[in-house]
Structures are given as structure tokens and as C-alpha cells.
């Protein structure tokens, strides 16, 4: 009898706690449950979770790990009955989508002293929907065992990766799948101009061994030695190194330092805790967590660098880091989906043809080096131009009509779409296929002449 009563009482108490925890979510001070959807790896989220909970013991942090795309999708699908407080991820474009869909609410962090720009990229969203809390730059990562076994020189610049020696040794993730890769491609386009930028991108792509679907697929492959060189975001390389993998990393001159962001979700159940977490991230204490070996991201709070180990990259001091290109967010935004689709249709899905053309060009070049021939040289230049040719100009790419093929949702019957996405893509793919085949033919002709 006694036991039954006690069990009952315990159950009642548990129920009360449950109910209370439900209601306190609406209280003003930071307590209760804080739900964060994030794409960051466990190493990083756990470190922040622990540091934050130490400072705010009343808050229970619940981390939901999803890749950026799935996270955005999740927020979109669940918006009608939102249960998430914060969205915490790298890619600014994901935040742009959420912002466009009205799924974020503005918050101005209380922390002072954060610069307006890191490298050439603005730290915060101008409308205050999301804030940058850490910076990362894209660069080149390589496996030193692989490089030694294959006798490869260490690459320093993007241009190095266009050299024949790296043929079939390089990997990248698709810009349509990784917001940060997109920014790297966009940076090259803005830095070198549309035509030349694409030429560089395609020449690099001729050496790609693979184009991964997940951002982490690239560092993962370099770590295990599946391929030698990867185009990755710095912290992937730095944390791999910290875990003991035989890998190294370098920033090329043309790179963008991009902020990783956090944004408060609209109708957040625990807004107070969410805002508290944002402030914590930007505070010196939160920023210091970024220096941990398994995380290795660049703080946006300049004072934190005083505590960084020697040789830690500092974009606020080192002017070569990410400031070569004056990144224009508006240009980037206008052609965002067009660039992704172009990359996919011209490179990702035509990689075999592109590589075949590239290899033919390399062969002809090698033959030509031994036995010069003017006609062959001209043919080869034509072949290279064919590879580099683009189906759309920079102006066309920025045309909202074209962009509309990708984004316009049927909101009202008046919204018109000139072409369907599938039609546009089919056109580009056919263009690429034809050009790569023609380039290969010309290169083969050149090779025949040089023999």
C-alpha cells in the first residue's frame, strides 16, 4: 500500500515537472529548453553546449543535428507549429532562404566590438535576421602520405590545381550542396571575372577525381587517402589535423573568409534563451571555444585572437586573408541558383566528358612540348576555349527572368516563368556535352599533328 502511494506520488511529481518545464518555456528569463537545429559537427556543438550550460545552468540545450539542407527543409516543413529556437549553421545562403521565407526574427546582439566585415564579407545580415559568430575560409587540404606516394608537389594557389600533374587527384563538393563551396566558386568568379573565373573553375574541374554531395565528403576522402587534394573549408582540415590525420592545409590568395551564422527562429518557443545563446556565442568566453583543436574556427571577436596559439590565422590582422576580393553580396545573391545550376550542368553531371577533354588536351600539350607545331597549338587553344565556353553571360546570369526559372513558386497566377528549370538545364547540359566532345576532338587532332 505504502509503496503504491509512493509510486503514485513520484509519478505525480514527474508529471508536474514535465508540465512546468513546458510552461516555463514562455517565461522571460533564460531557462527551460533551448532547441537548436545545426549542421555543425558533434565536436563543436558539444563544446559550446557544455560551455553555455556552465554559464546558464537553468537552460537545457537540445541539439538537433541535420545537414544544412535538411535543416532548412525541417524548419520550412514545421513552421506551422514551430518548436525550434535557433538555426545554427555555416552557409549564409541557407539563412538567406530562411529569411526569404520569413522564418527568422531579427535580433541585435548585445556584444560590442564585432567588426562589420571579416575579410571582404559582412559579418552580420544587414537586416539583423542572423549574425556571424565565427569565420572560416576556403582553401586547399592535402594528404601528405598520398602526395608523397604519388610524387605530387604541394599546391598553394587555385591556379596550381589547374596543372596536369593533379589530374584525377582533386576533389570538391558540389556548390549546390555546400554553401561554402558555392562561395568559393563565386569568389573566384568575382575575383577573376565571369569568363576567366569559369575558365579557372573548369580547368580545375578537369582535374577533379570526384565531386561530393556532402561537404564533409571531401575532408573525409582526403583523410582516408581516397584522393590527395581537397578544396575544403579551413576548420575541416584543421580539426582533421588535430585528430591526428596526416593532412595539411593552405589558404590561397584568392579566398573568401565567410562568417558562420546563427539566427533566432520566428516564433521561437524560448526566445529569451535563444537570444542569450547568441550573445554567449559572441562573448569572449564563447569565442574562445572556437580555438579548441577539434573546432578551429576563426573568432569574429578580434580580442579573442590574443588567446589563440601562435600561427593561428587572423583575418583581422593578415590582410592577405580573404581581402583580395571585394565580395559583392548583391551580385552573388542575384545569380546564386544560376551559378549552382551552371556548375552542376556543366561540371558535376558532365565530369566524365570534361575529364576526357582535359586529358586529351594534356596529352596533346605534352606531345607539343616535345615537338612544337603551330597549327596544333592553335587547335589546342581552340580546344581550351571550347572547354571554357559558357552558355550564358554574366549579364544573363544576373537576369531575374533566368533566376526565376529556379525560384519562382506559384504564389499568384500572375507570376510568369519564361522557362522551366528542367528546360534551361537541358539546354546547358547539351551545350556542355557538345563543347567537351568538340574540344576532345580538336585536342586529338592536335595530338595527331604533334606526333
Amino acid at each position, binding site marked *: 500500500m505504502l509503496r503504491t502511494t509512493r509510486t503514485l506520488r513520484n509519478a505525480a511529481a514527474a508529471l508536474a515537472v514535465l508540465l512546468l518545464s513546458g510552461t516555463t518555456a514562455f517565461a522571460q528569463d533564460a531557462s527551460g529548453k533551448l*532547441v537548436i537545429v545545426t*549542421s555543425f*559537427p*558533434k*565536436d563543436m556543438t558539444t563544446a559550446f553546449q557544455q560551455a553555455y550550460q556552465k554559464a546558464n545552468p537553468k537552460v537545457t540545450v*537540445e541539439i*538537433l*543535428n541535420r545537414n544544412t*539542407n*535538411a535543416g*532548412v527543409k525541417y524548419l520550412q*516543413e*514545421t513552421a*506551422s*507549429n514551430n*518548436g525550434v529556437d535557433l538555426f545554427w549553421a555555416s552557409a549564409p*545562403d*541557407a539563412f538567406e*532562404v530562411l529569411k*526569404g521565407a520569413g522564418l527568422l526574427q531579427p535580433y541585435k546582439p548585445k556584444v560590442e566590438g564585432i567588426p562589420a566585415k571579416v575579410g571582404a564579407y559582412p559579418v552580420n545580415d544587414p537586416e539583423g535576421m542572423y549574425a556571424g559568430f565565427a569565420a572560416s575560409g576556403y582553401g586547399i587540404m592535402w594528404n601528405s*602520405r*598520398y602526395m608523397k606516394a604519388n610524387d605530387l608537389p604541394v599546391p598553394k594557389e587555385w591556379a596550381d590545381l589547374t596543372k596536369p600533374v593533379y589530374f584525377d587527384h582533386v576533389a570538391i563538393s*558540389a556548390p549546390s*550542396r555546400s554553401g561554402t563551396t558555392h562561395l568559393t566558386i563565386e569568389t573566384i568568379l568575382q575575383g577573376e571575372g565571369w569568363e576567366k573565373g569559369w575558365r579557372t573553375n573548369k580547368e580545375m574541374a578537369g582535374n577533379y577525381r*570526384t565531386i561530393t*554531395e*556532402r561537404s*564533409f*565528403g571531401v*575532408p*573525409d*576522402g582526403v*583523410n*582516408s*587517402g*581516397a584522393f590527395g587534394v581537397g578544396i575544403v573549408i579551413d576548420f575541416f582540415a584543421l*580539426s*582533421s589535423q588535430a*585528430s591526428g*590525420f*596526416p*593532412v595539411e592545409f593552405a589558404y590561397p590568395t584568392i579566398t573568401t573568409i565567410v562568417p558562420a551564422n546563427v539566427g533566432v527562429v520566428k516564433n521561437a518557443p524560448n526566445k529569451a534563451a535563444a537570444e542569450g545563446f547568441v550573445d554567449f556565442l559572441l562573448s569572449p568566453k564563447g569565442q574562445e571555444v572556437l580555438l579548441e583543436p*577539434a573546432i578551429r574556427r576563426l573568432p569574429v571577436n578580434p580580442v579573442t585572437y590574443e588567446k589563440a596559439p601562435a600561427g593561428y590565422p587572423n583575418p583581422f590582422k593578415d590582410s592577405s586573408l580573404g581581402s583580395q576580393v571585394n565580395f559583392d553580396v548583391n551580385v552573388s545573391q542575384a545569380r*546564386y541558383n544560376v551559378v549552382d545550376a551552371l556548375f552542376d*550542368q556543366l561540371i558535376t*553531371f558532365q565530369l*566524365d566528358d570534361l575529364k576526357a577533354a582535359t586529358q586529351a588536351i594534356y596529352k596533346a600539350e605534352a606531345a607539343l612540348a616535345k615537338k612544337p607545331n603551330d597549327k596544333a597549338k592553335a587547335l589546342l587553344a581552340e580546344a581550351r576555349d571550347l572547354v571554357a565556353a559558357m552558355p550564358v553571360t554574366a549579364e544573363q546570369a544576373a537576369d531575374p527572368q533566368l533566376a526565376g526559372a*529556379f525560384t*519562382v*513558386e*506559384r504564389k499568384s*497566377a500572375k507570376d*510568369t*516563368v519564361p522557362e*522551366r*528549370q*528542367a528546360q534551361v538545364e*537541358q539546354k546547358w*547540359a547539351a551545350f556542355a*556535352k557538345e563543347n567537351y566532345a568538340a574540344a576532345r576532338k580538336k585536342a586529338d587532332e592536335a595530338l595527331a599533328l604533334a606526333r
Partner: protein
Amino acid sequence: MTSLALTRDRIARVRPGPALAALLIAAFLLLFLVVPVVQVIFVAFQDKTTGAFTLVNFADFFGNDLFMRSFANSFYVSAMSVVVASLLALPLAYLTTRFEFRGSVLIQSLGIIPLIMPPFIGAVAMQLLFGRNGSVNLLLRDHFGFSIPFMEGLNGVIFVQSIHYFPFILINLSASLKNIDRAMEESAQNLGCHGFRLFRRIVFPLAMPGYVAGASLVFIKVFDDLGTPLLLNVNDMLAPQAYLRISSIGISDPMGYVISVVLISCSLLALWVSALAMRGKDYATVQRGGGGLAKRRLKPLEMVAAYGIVLLILVLVLAPHVGLGLLSFATIWSFSPVPDAFTLKHYQTVFTESGQYITNTLLYASLAALLDVVIGTAIAYLVLRTKLPGRQWLDYIAMAALAVPGVVLGIGYLRSFYGVPMPFTGQPLSNFWLILVFALAIRRLPYALRACTAALQQVSSSLEEAAENLGATKLRTVSRIVVPLMSGGILAGFVTSFATAAVELSATIMLVHSQSDAPLAYGLYVYMQSAAGRGPGAALGIFAVIIVGLGTYLSHVVIERGRRERGQDQ
């Protein structure tokens, strides 16, 4: 008048019990399969600008080179996977069922393990072993100066998929082979047939139903699977194309859903074709007076060859798990045949961090599998033993789940249930962990259903009639006679559902809403997002394999004990 009488006659024959069961199952399928899927794929038939019904998206699909190439690739990879999987499964099934072969139970059990390939980590292990710079190729290159492109492009997908899914053929084919009356084989020998001709002309055709069942499963799974091609970075196949489209941010393109529709249609077509091919050929059952299978003794030389073949196949198909084991104990494994050094710390990490994942997985997978065999048995019974109008549709709809990509189901669930608040707590219904169980159950239902149907087909209906004749009600007859006699098939269904549900990711990832409710596959995913998580991820993967292995073994023990108690021991 006649038609009216007919209808009345039909109604009179419908008993309320089965009708109620059929209605409940229909409601379940409708709510948790049809509605969510339709919610997602209706976009495929919508004009982007007007919202009106249109087929223009399908015209785009068929007019697009990339999609057509993907279509061809998917078809090629699926067909080749069936071929390679058959090459792996045939010798194992044949040698272990038709010959006196020491360890055949062990071989059969080991042969099922590849089905439990934890997501992500399995492909990583395969890359480390068979990749261009994996152990095998590094050794080959060092010692012989050449390498074998196991994992390159479509070949890689075929290789991994065959190893992953060949147990479907092994299980079904073994069951069929065991059921062949030995007189069938002996009469052929008696007439002068032997060796491979005997296998080709008599044994294999008689085992055809099992083989076709297994092969069509392999075909469909490979056709729909997106995890393996994505991890091997093969994008020009249909499932990855659909996934890439559906999960791209900020793109509102219907093609992803169009591809989903194509995927579902192709899978249904494959099921239909295999059903058509097997119509009236359900003959792999023991005949009167026959002795079941005859196990022949092998000559010493044959024995050596047979063990050699079996060992080779086992080494190949268990390689991912060996790689996984190595990885879970490895400190660093990079561009070398074996890891640099070994450690136990990954297991320590998993023990301290991931207990919740393991208990959740056990709970979810066993509930889902239970649900599957209950519904599977019920549908099998309704279809085979009742005259309910439209009962075949339950079977068709349940089988269609086989063809629904996990992502589509996951998104469908979110769309359908997120807006529905739970009673009392007010939480969205889709956050309730049981929804995850339902998603897992729906995705595995086809396996359980086929196993239950096959089991019921082998139970003579006169056994039921005898029970009813002795005064048992229909329900009692089913629970006391039919279900116990079906226990073998039900077990097979339970094990397949459990094993595959325990490592399912694609629907899970969309539906997990809190870490405390997350299953093991989600934990794996989280670990595999960072360089430092690779070891613990592998350790967790090993746990997954052990859990599934133990679960399988335990359910075998339980069912076998039940059989022995009922004196059904064979």
C-alpha cells in the same frame, strides 16, 4: 436481378471480423503511407505557374539528357547488381542446402550480416579496403604494380550494392532450394542428368520462385537506394537526382518529385513483372511422399573447392564489416593497408555518449518489426484466405512502400503530421517518437509481408478447417493454428524488418526531433560529420551490427523453442 443477388451473396460471405481487420489495415496504410506520399508527389503533376494539373513535367523528364542518362544508369546498375548478387548468393545457397556441409548454418547466418550495413560508415569501410587507395589496391600496387577499380563510378555502386543486398537472394533462394522434393532431383539423375546440367535444368528452375522473389527485391532496392551512390559520389542515377533536387535549398523545382514518381512506378512495374513471371509457378513445395532435401556428400577434392569458393565469397561480403571492425579500433587509418595503431578509446566514447541511441534503436526497431509482422500476417491472411472484395489492394499498397524513397516518406510525414497537435501535450504529432516507428514499419512492411505470405501459402487450409470443425472461432484458429505454423516465415519477416530498421537513416533523419529520441543511425550520422568522429562512428556501427545480430539470434531461439514445445521440430 442477378447482379443484385450476387452482391448480396458477396456481402453475406464477408465476415465482420476480417472486414474490420481489413478496414483497420487500410486506414493505417492510408494514413501512414498513401496520404504522406501523395502530399509530396502531387507537386509532380502541378503546373508551376498555375497549379493546374499537367504532365509537362514528365515531358521535361523524358526530354532531359541527364535524367535519361540517370535512368539508364539506374537500370544498368540495378540489373548488374542482380547479376553480381546472384553470383554471390547462388554458390552459398546451393552448397549449404544441397550438400553435407559442415558449418552451413554458420555460413547462412554470416551471409545475412551484409544486410546490416550501417549507413555512411559501411561505405567508408569499403573505400578504405577496396577504394583506389584502399588496402587491397595499395598492396596490389606495391607488390604487383596494378590495381583493380572496384569502387570506380557505376562499378563501385554495383559492387557495394551487390554485397549489401545479396542476402535477399540468399535467404529466398535457400528457402526455395530446401523445399524442393528430392525425388525431383533424383528422377533427373536417374534419367542420366548430373552436375551443372542438373542444376540448370531441374534444380534452379524449381527454385525459381524464390530466386525471382529475391532478385526483384534486390533490383528494386538498388533502383531506389540513394545512400550508396551518394556516398560514392555517383550522382547520375535516379534516386540521387531525386534526392539532390528535393533537398536543395531554395529551389522550387518539381523534377525531384517527378523522379520520385518515376522511381515508384518503376518499382511497382518490377514487382508486377516478377509476379507475372511467377504466376502459376508456385511449386517449390514438398510433395507427398518426398523426403525434402537430399544432402549429398562431396568428394574430398570437391570439398576443398567448395570450401574455397564459400570462403572467398564470405571474405568478400564480410569485408565491409571487417573494415568497420578495424576502423573502430584504429587510431589513424590513412593511405595505408592497415591502421597506424589500435586503441579502445572509441568504444569508451560510444559507451559514455551513446547509450540512449542504442536503447532507442532496440525499442524502435523491435516495435516496427512487430508491427510489420502483425500487419503482414493479417494482410497475407486476408488475401489468401478470405473473399473480401478488394483485398488484393492491401497487398499492392503495402508492397508499394518498397518503392517509396525514405526522404519522400520523411517529408510526407512532416507535411501530414506536423500541423496536428498531440492530445494533452500540444506537441506536434510528428515529434512523437511513435511516428518514427510507423515510418520504419511502413518502409519494412513489404519484406515482412512477403515472408508472411510465403509462410501462409505453405500452411494447408485443411488444418484450419479441422480447427474450425472442432469448434474454434476464426480468431482462435488463426492464433492457435495458423500463426504457430507460420512462425518460421514470421520470424524471417521480423528479422529482416528489425535488421534493416535498426540501420535505416533516410526517413529517420527527417523525423528525429530531439536527441533523446534519436536512434543509432542518427548517432552514426552525427559522428560521421567530423574527422574525430570516424572511430566512434565505426564503434557505434559495430554496436549496430552486434545488436541486430543478437536480436536475430534471440528471436531465432525464442521461435525455435516454441516450435520444439509444439513438437514441430524438423
